[in-house]
């Protein structure tokens, strides 16, 4: 693992860019409006924002699941073929109830034609990294909430996708596990040059792992503030004790508070 200086973000090529994206559901709820967002190659980008502000919706649009109602989603190199290489940790575990833990994690490889035998090592390794090797043959209903989420994480990582979209992946995990998985994620991202979009509610977590944080405001959901975390990598537990870290956390927290306040204002003004 090599020490890597933080690149000046704009110097990185853009993978996807959302321009003036809006999403209105048939129920009438406008989840997103005028959302501008660039995802840049090799960065960890965190989305922070109040509950219901459209983070999951934005992530799904990036993944090509559900079209935007308005605006534009442009991929580098044109086309969506790129996204063949996407991993997604949904906010809910989204496991197949009829398949064992092993089979659930095998799924992405299986869909690419990899046999059970060929996938075995990669699947077991992914399960090991989330501490679930002993439960490979269990069914989802036999797992705790956190365990189910870990299966989902293992499934997203098993194919080592170049773009990883994660929707509050660690929210249901204890802090020790969460810390470990944060570190694992950063290590793999650095090693393999992944691009990661990471939705979280934890200001601390977002500062700890991100290159950039976009704070969203709700109703309609849009990018409200951007924060570049210009801290050296690799980061470890020690980073959490630095004044830089604490300062970033304070900034992010303030941005979040005012994003929530602003939204409340908007609605009150209606």
């Amino acid at each position, binding site marked *: 693992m090599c020490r890597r200086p933080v690149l000046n973000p704009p110097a990185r090529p853009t993978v996807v860019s959302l321009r003036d994206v809006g999403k209105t559901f048939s129920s009438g709820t*406008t989840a997103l409006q005028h959302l501008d967002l660039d995802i840049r190659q090799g960065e960890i980008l965190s989305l922070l924002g109040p509950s219901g502000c459209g983070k999951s919706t934005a992530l799904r649009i990036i993944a090509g699941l*559900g*079209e935007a109602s*308005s605006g534009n989603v442009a991929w580098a190199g044109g086309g969506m073929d790129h996204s063949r290489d996407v991993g997604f940790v949904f906010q809910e575990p989204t496991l197949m109830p009829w398949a064992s833990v092993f089979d659930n994690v095998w799924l992405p490889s299986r869909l690419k034609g990899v046999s059970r035998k060929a996938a075995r090592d990669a699947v077991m390794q992914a399960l090991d990294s989330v501490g679930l090797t002993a439960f490979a043959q269990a069914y989802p209903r036999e797992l705790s909430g956190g365990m189910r989420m870990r299966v989902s994480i293992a499934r997203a990582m098993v194919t080592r996708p170049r773009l990883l979209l994660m929707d509050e992946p660690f929210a249901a995990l204890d802090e020790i596990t969460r810390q470990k998985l944060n570190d694992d994620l950063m290590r793999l991202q650095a090693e393999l040059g992944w691009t990661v979009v990471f939705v979280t509610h934890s200001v601390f977590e977002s500062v700890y792992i991100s290159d950039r944080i976009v704070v969203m405001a709700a109703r309609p959901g849009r990018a409200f503030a951007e924060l570049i975390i210009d801290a050296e990598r690799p980061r470890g537990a020690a980073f959490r004790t630095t004044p830089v870290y604490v300062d970033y956390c304070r900034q992010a927290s303030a941005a979040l508070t005012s994003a929530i306040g602003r*939204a409340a204002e908007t*609605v009150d003004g*209606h």
Partner: protein
Amino acid sequence: MSAISSADDAVTPSAPSRQGPPALLKWLLPFAFLVVVLGLWEYCVAAGLTPMKVVPAPSEIWAAFFREWETLGPAWLFTLEVTLKGFVLAVAGGVCLAILFSLSRLVEYTLYPYAIILQVTPVLALAPLLLVIFSQATVLLICVWLVAFFPVLANTLIGLRSTDHNLLNLFELYRASSWQKLWLLRLRGALPYFLGGVRIAGGLSLIGAVVSELATGAGGARGGLGYIIYLAPRYFAYPRAYAALVLLSLSGIAIFLALSYLSHLLLHKWHESALKREN
């Protein structure tokens, strides 16, 4: 933290629906297909490709509708009435039995075999016995019930047994009575299964009414479509028999559509089978 209701949104771009074919096509294609089918049929008859006289051309059937409406109309009403009455009884009976069986596995094991026996007993065999005891009108309804109740029972029972265990826990936590659990939880969750069973039962009621007419001899002057379908060919009134078959088919399709619409009304807000995908 606060929210906007739908009405608040002024700037709602009207998104083109990703899902489903345009409404026009949705009706046009089935209609076009029907025209092709009828056209082909007419041609085959005209070209003498069908067994002589046995299968009349659509145009002949069409003519028979008007010519024989005096016979067909009352027969149709007769069959429809029996069908609908029997259908309602079958749905009610099927649901009641399903609820009874869902009370406990013991009840289910004890009584389910008899439900199966009722399902597999041919009405042709049973009707003469029933006629000894009951009036013809009653036997007719019993027979339709026998033909149609089982899908409602079987599907509803699966539905009642498929209740989300987490929601069951919730209801038990709040000390819901059995009745509340049934009405507010189990039956709601069973709806998709139940409605599936009801749709199957719709067609079965119709065919049950036709068969039972023959089995109970509810024929003669007051007969229904069954008698016409069965007896008209005897007098070479093939167009009349086919007209009756067309009425039967249209009734079946109408019943199915009505039940599908009901199903849509009850499910489209929440069940995947009726929900539009939006992401």
